[in-house]
């Protein structure tokens, strides 16, 4: 708990900064746009419709889609100006959050100005106001409560949605929630939720205070609210400036996807780089699968661990499954180098395959040992998969090849999936073969008897930029190749998932163990 609380100031500052910047930009866009719309009624349907459409995009998707879009923009910008745009982290989060804040502020600005009594508008014109004076002296002050209500709505939304900045690589209170859920650290989840809620209430209160001050013309209240907002902005700005100044040596940026193993591996990489090269590192955790890959291609990420089968099926869109994992490894490596300039530093030594698992008891009772056996019983069973699983090509191939038709399919958080199958709330889950919980919970992994699932050797990937600019980092990490066997990985995962150790502590423990120096298995 206390080590979690130690992270609070950093996450809170990052969260606050995302929120304030997005709200500031959102207001700066929406207020003039709303005013413009009231002057051009024919544009209203189009503008409000567009803003409404943005709102209907699920917030996580809106943020995540910024990553590939920015990667495209970055590629174009590099070609045109030689300047690249970061495609993960702060920028996609800010753009997504700003877009999200537009609708409530825009709509309330239009409603507020439209709502001014026509007699008052006639009076404003009659006494000789110009359009600008009419807006400043009459319409905006009278619309203010409605506009502020819109800003307050946006504030509460943005504080909540900013927790989703974590998967696109921007630190926020969402780090607590995402990593907490993955590593079964409910205290972390709770801290994240409570802090986000408190932040939402606090900011909402400040905006309301500002409005009351303006409306009742009480200077003390206005100055108080403005002062507090300014202090918050300055405090967060200070952390940003410090990051920039401190980042004269660009940290090696290490990505981690959204599950325990990835957190541990990213910590191991960071620790190892720190020990052997003394370069600063930065971990961007809880990234979506394709977000991480796109970020590596664009150079926004320097390093992360992926799995050959994932790249084979999802990126290369290969449907065949060669009998020998080494062939897949070699072809993936060649593809990454030739197509994206990515270096495969090495295979870590274990495979983490997608597998279908069910309770030992149920499998035994129904006589299921292979996926072919499962297909016959599937119509009576419920299957749960992680967020990605049912949209991955592997699932399509499994379902098609074996004719899997379940009674019901549910997507849920990977960490909840295990609890669900253990308590018989679902019958089959998409498991990771290295997950310590398979053994701990008494689960049977079903044999892929028709060889549909490709091999998933864990491979360390490095961006073209890192290979070019920091070959010492690659050299430092090569010895990790082949050093982490499947048993080791399962054990490390269990330390986090079942014993509640932090990924950082587990990584330190792993590197401190003398462990036989690995027999090098250099990248093919």
């Amino acid at each position, binding site marked *: 708990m206390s080590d979690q609380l130690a992270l609070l100031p950093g996450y809170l500052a990052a969260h606050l900064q995302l929120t304030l910047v997005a709200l500031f930009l959102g207001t700066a866009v929406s207020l003039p746009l709303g005013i413009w719309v009231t002057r051009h009624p024919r544009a209203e349907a189009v503008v409000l419709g567009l803003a409404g459409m943005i709102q209907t995009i699920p917030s996580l998707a809106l943020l995540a889609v910024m990553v590939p879009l920015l990667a495209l923009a970055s590629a174009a910008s590099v070609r045109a100006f030689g300047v690249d745009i970061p495609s993960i982290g702060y920028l996609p989060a800010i753009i997504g959050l700003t877009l999200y804040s537009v609708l409530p502020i825009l709509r309330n600005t239009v409603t507020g100005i439209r709502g001014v009594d026509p007699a*008052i*508008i*006639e*009076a404003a014109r*009659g*006494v*000789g*106001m110009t359009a600008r004076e009419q807006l400043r*002296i009459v319409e905006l002050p*009278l619309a203010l409560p409605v506009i502020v209500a819109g800003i307050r709505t946006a504030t509460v939304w943005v504080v909540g949605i900013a927790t989703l900045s974590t998967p696109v690589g921007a630190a926020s209170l969402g780090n607590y929630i995402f990593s907490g859920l993955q590593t079964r650290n409910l205290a972390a989840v709770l801290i994240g939720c409570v802090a986000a809620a408190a932040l939402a209430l606090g900011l909402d209160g400040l905006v309301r205070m500002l409005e009351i001050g303006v409306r009742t013309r009480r200077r003390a209240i206005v100055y108080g609210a403005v002062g507090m907002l300014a202090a918050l902005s300055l405090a967060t700005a200070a952390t940003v400036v410090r990051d920039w100044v401190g980042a004269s040596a660009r940290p090696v940026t290490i990505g981690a996807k959204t599950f325990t193993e990835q957190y541990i591996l990213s910590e191991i990489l960071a620790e190892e780089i720190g020990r052997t090269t003394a370069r600063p590192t930065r971990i961007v955790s809880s990234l979506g699968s394709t977000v991480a890959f796109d970020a590596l291609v664009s150079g926004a990420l320097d390093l992360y661990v992926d799995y050959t089968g994932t790249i084979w099926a999802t990126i290369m869109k290969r449907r065949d499954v060669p009998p020998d994992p080494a062939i897949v490894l070699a072809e993936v490596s060649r593809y990454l180098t030739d197509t994206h300039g990515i270096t495969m530093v090495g295979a870590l030594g274990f495979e983490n395959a997608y597998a279908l698992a069910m309770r030992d008891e149920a499998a035994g009772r129904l006589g299921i040992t292979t996926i072919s056996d499962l297909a016959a019983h599937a119509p009576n069973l419920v299957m749960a998969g992680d967020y990605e699983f049912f949209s991955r090509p592997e699932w399509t191939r499994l379902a098609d090849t074996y004719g899997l038709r379940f009674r019901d399919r549910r997507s849920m958080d990977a960490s909840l999936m295990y609890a669900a199958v253990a308590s018989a709330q679902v019958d089959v889950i998409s498991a990771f073969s290295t997950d310590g919980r398979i053994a701990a919970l008494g689960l049977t992994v079903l044999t892929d008897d028709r060889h549909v699932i490709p091999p998933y050797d864990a491979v360390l990937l490095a961006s073209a930029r890192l290979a070019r600019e920091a070959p010492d980092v690659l050299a430092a990490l090569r010895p990790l190749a082949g050093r982490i066997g499947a048993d080791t990985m399962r054990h490390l995962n269990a330390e986090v998932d079942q014993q509640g150790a932090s990924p950082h502590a587990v990584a330190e423990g792993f590197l401190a163990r003398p462990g036989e120096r690995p027999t090098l298995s250099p990248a093919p």
Partner: protein
Amino acid sequence: MLRLVALRKRFGATVVVDGLDLTVDRGERVVLLGGSGSGKTTTLKMVNRLIEPDGGRVEIDGTDAATLAPHELRRRIGYCFQQVGLFPHLTVGENVAITPRLLEWEPARIAARIDELLDLVELPPTEFRDRLPASLSGGQQQRVGVARALAAAPSLVLLDEPFGALDPLTRDRLQQSFLAIARRLALTAIFVTHDMLEALLIGDRIAVMRDGRLEQIGTPAELLTHPASEYVRTLLATPFQQIERVRRATAPDGTP
């Protein structure tokens, strides 16, 4: 002082004002009288260009109103209408001060002017200056409306049924007040109403409008004694007939 020449306005297919000519002399109060849809309000609003004419022109002291920026024109013309339209977020004093403020008068001059006008409309400044419009009665609000219209000492005042929404007692008091103020300041004013008695009380001359045209213009006495048409005759006879009917209905039994 004010000349309307062949003024014309149509809304869609409907011609609302159809070639209207009218001259108002300095210090004169002209009442535009007519039923709903006669074009009197449209005519009034074309004077300060709240409505832009389709044809003809408005001359103020020899200047074509169309050559001025609308907001500059309006700052020189007082405007007061039935819904009053006080700015609810501004105090009574600030409402009155609005046009002087737009004209960038000195603050001290504005402050003095506020008190002068509130006195004029019989709202003691110390009591009313800092109150918000919502705390005033309808009659008090329209007094503020009149004060606001007069604030920048306009050469011309336009009033569009200013007392139409008030109860009879309040209306009577405000009519008397307005008449006293108008005489004292020698206001040049156009006053729109459909109320015959109000027209007879307030107008130096009455312009009777019908279907967007001027039916007749003249002093109340001229209109009563020499109506130009059957319409004008009926219109002016109506209130007197009503009074007569009321008198008869309330008289003791049998006596005429």
